[in-house]
């Protein structure tokens, strides 16, 4: 433990924490843009600066560890002036289109502008876009003009998903984030797997989900925690619904889940359109041989029908006449039971599994 002084008040905190973690843990507020607890430290946004009383310096609290006797000010006039200037600079290079922005209500930059009472930058506003919006793939829209270069997308991509699909390019004011060879994320040269974690990490509207455009913003949506049904991993997902319709799949960040850092795959993230698809099967169908039509049946009817047929085939042609293909969408236990049914029940070794997503 270390004894530190925050805004003149003494606190005892864990000594292996960063100043940011310690101060937030004690209930003080420090704004951040590039910091995320699950990612490495960047120190680039400069919003988490606090004043070190001893040295008189402004230091980034995310990257500095607590030390015994540390004394800091988290919201002195000097600190707030510096933070305001950072937000002011960011706003001077950010479109002021919150009213039509997908991230409205879910944007840290918007919150900061509100906090500092900046309806536009004091240095002038960004009238014309500097970049083209990238949206040549079905899933993710990248608007570099809204990017504040916090680099959280790059870090989640490199450190958690390990796709190494995106990084910073160019220098100075022309710096931006791009995929390989400045092509679209969906290009053959791109290693993006569309896990969507970059979008989840984006604190602004620079990265958004293409299928969710126009489907509602944060304050229109309900959140339901669910377990992904695509495979046996059992990832936790945040289903965002509007009315009774799933419009977006968000991440859940929680220790102890199979995907503690909000990981997902392209199916879990984007494969929800089937839910409301008119072709979706909702009851068993049995084919009428006379008419060739499929007719709705109850589960009892269907299972009886299948059982009868199984017995009939086994009697006529033996167990080898059966083959089964089971699915990665089932749990291990389900798959075990399937092979048991084939081998012990029906007497066939012909069983396979898609074993891939």
């Amino acid at each position: 433990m270390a004894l530190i002084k925050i805004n003149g008040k003494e606190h005892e905190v864990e000594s292996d924490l960063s100043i940011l973690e310690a101060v937030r843990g004690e209930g003080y507020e420090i704004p951040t843009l590039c910091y995320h607890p699950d990612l490495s430290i960047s120190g680039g946004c400069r919003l988490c600066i606090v004043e070190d009383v001893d040295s008189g310096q402004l230091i980034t609290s995310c990257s500095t560890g607590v030390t015994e006797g540390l004394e800091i000010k988290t919201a002195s006039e000097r600190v707030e002036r510096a933070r305001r200037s950072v937000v002011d600079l960011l706003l001077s290079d950010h479109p002021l289109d919150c009213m039509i922005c997908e991230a409205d209500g879910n944007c840290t930059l918007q919150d900061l502008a509100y906090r500092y009472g900046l309806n536009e930058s004091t240095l002038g506003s960004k009238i014309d876009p500097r970049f083209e919006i990238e949206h040549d793939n079905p899933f993710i829209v990248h608007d570099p003009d809204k990017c504040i270069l916090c680099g959280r997308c790059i870090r989640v991509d490199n450190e958690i998903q390990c796709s190494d699909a995106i990084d910073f390019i160019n220098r100075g004011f022309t710096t931006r984030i791009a995929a390989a060879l400045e092509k679209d994320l969906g290009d053959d040269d791109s290693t993006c797997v569309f896990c969507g974690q970059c979008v989840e990490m984006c604190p602004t509207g620079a990265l958004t989900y293409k299928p969710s455009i126009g489907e509602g913003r944060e304050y229109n949506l309900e959140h339901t925690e669910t377990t992904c049904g695509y495979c046996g991993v059992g990832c936790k997902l945040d289903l965002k619904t509007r009315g009774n319709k799933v419009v977006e799949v968000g991440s859940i960040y929680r220790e102890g889940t199979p995907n503690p850092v909000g990981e997902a795959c392209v199916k879990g993230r984007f494969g929800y359109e089937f839910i409301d698809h008119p072709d979706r099967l909702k009851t068993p169908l049995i084919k009428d041989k006379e008419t060739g039509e499929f007719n709705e049946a109850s589960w009892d009817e269907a299972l009886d029908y299948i059982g009868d047929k199984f017995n009939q085939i086994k009697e006529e042609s033996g167990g080898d006449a059966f083959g089964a293909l089971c699915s990665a969408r089932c749990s291990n236990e389900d798959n075990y039971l399937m092979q048991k049914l084939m081998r012990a029940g029906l007497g066939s070794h012909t069983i396979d599994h898609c074993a891939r997503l």
Partner: protein
Amino acid sequence: MKSLEELKEIRDKYKNEIQIRKKEFREEEHIHKAHVMVCTGTGCVSSGARDVVAEFNDELGSRNLEDEVKVVGTGCHGLCELGPLVIVYPEGTFYSEITRDDVAEIVEEHIIDGQIVERLLYEDKSGKKIAGYNDIDFYKRQKRIALKNCGKINPESIEEYFAEGGYEALGKVIDELSPEEVIEMVKDSGLRGRGGGGFPTGLKWSFAAGAPGDKKYVICNADEGDPGAFMDRSVLEGDPHGIIEGMAISAYAIGADEGYIYVRAEYPLAVMRLKKAIIDAEEYGILGDNIYDSDFSFDLHVKEGAGAFVCGEETALMQSIEGNRGMPTPRPPYPAVKGLWGKPTNINNVETLVNIPYIILEGPEKFSAVGTEGSKGTKVFALTGKVNNTGLVEIAMGTTLREIIFDIGGGVQGGKEFKAVQTGGPSGGCVPKEHLDLSIDYESLLDVGAMMGSGGMVVMDEDTCMVDVARFFLDFTQSESCGKCTPCRIGTKRMLQILERITQGDGQGGDIDLLLELGARVKETSLCGLGQTAPNPVLSTIKFFRDEYEAHIYDNYCPTGSCDELALPYWIDKDICIGCTACVNECPVDAISGERKEPHVIDEDACISCGACAEICPVDAIFQK
């Protein structure tokens, strides 16, 4: 090579060969009749030094003198403007601006007949021909420690480095000193980092030495990127072994066994000579396992940079070595604790390291006897801009700006008035003439809003617009910002935009205060040294030349006439004008009107101040307002 004794034997053998170049042995018998030293630094090579070397070899060969006269390619002498430079020993005659065509004359008259070729000698301001290298003003006021071998030996010959006592300091350290004692010596010398920050080197070493870890690294920062600066390049090209020895000593002191020299790929000659020097040192057993038969082992690699200025910042430099995009990371953790690949790492600049063997061999007292209270030793500067003698100078700390610019540099070109000098490159500041007697040391320069930096020194005359100078340097830092932190990426851009509008005549009231405010915030909140110092040229020019900013903004006037958009319109003196109409035909925007043989007039609103009319006017009747 297994021991210091063995080294000394080799040294003595080669010492005889090069003593012809020493003043104190001038009268003695030598192995060769003469040594012809041709500077083969980048500057002289660009002006044809390689041809000169080839021509000397041909000429001497055709006269069967190749065994008697040795032609030696050397490192930089500093006076690059007058290259290619040739010095002939034993007399030590200094010839400048030598071409192939001059070679036969030097061989014939000087080497064979013993007559100095007057025509090719350096000429000083008063027109006097000076033969002796050390009699030239440019050289005689310098104090050479870091550059002591530059120009004196063949940098591609490890044996010549031995002959000058090379690698003895390393031997002494390994044989006689503990790592703690080495660090104490460096501390006692008062040496401070020559890369810009001025952090005490010995203290830096003690941090890395004290950091826990079984694997440690040393790095030489040779990513010299300031516009117009070439101090490190000259050392790299002229004395590569001096750097290797300095690094090996620092590795011994901190307990490292591996090192990297991070050098700009834009310095191909330096890269080539470093690589050769490393191979030669390895062959002699001075690098590698069990150096001088001790437990100390040291491997050295060269890593070429990819052209980013910010990689001169130590944390970005390490990212680059690791194969990442060169972007700085926050400190702490400092490299001494968590550096390259997370291991304790000591990073020093080229010039810092090349001072180390001298400190070890000559003793810290001798080093600290030179300089001021807080800044010991010497500093190399690249003197450029509107000064008569541009080039590389090494001076004792505490020398004044006036001595460098006027005594060594020979004053301002064209007899114009001195206005300011920019020290410290794009991170530094402009020092005006009222501070010409400022002592050059770390603190004094900081006090006036400039900095030592790595040693760039750009002299400006009365015709230089200080707003434009600030714009130039900020344009550089903005385009070299890595883009990671907000204040540096956007703040410098906004400052640059304000400077651009001021120089284009669109300055607004309040712009100066806005620049001061933005500059203060960018300095205060940027992540690394690049952003923290980027506003310096702006802040220092506002501090000393605020009236020039005001003239641009409020009077729409550039006092030096440098800013095109602010140039004042021309007018015709009707008493002189003869109505020849020459100007009417010349004016590209049809701003001049008048009847033939009657005085003409210029429409001020239409005039673009190109000056074409004034040039063509046969009676000089046209003037600028």
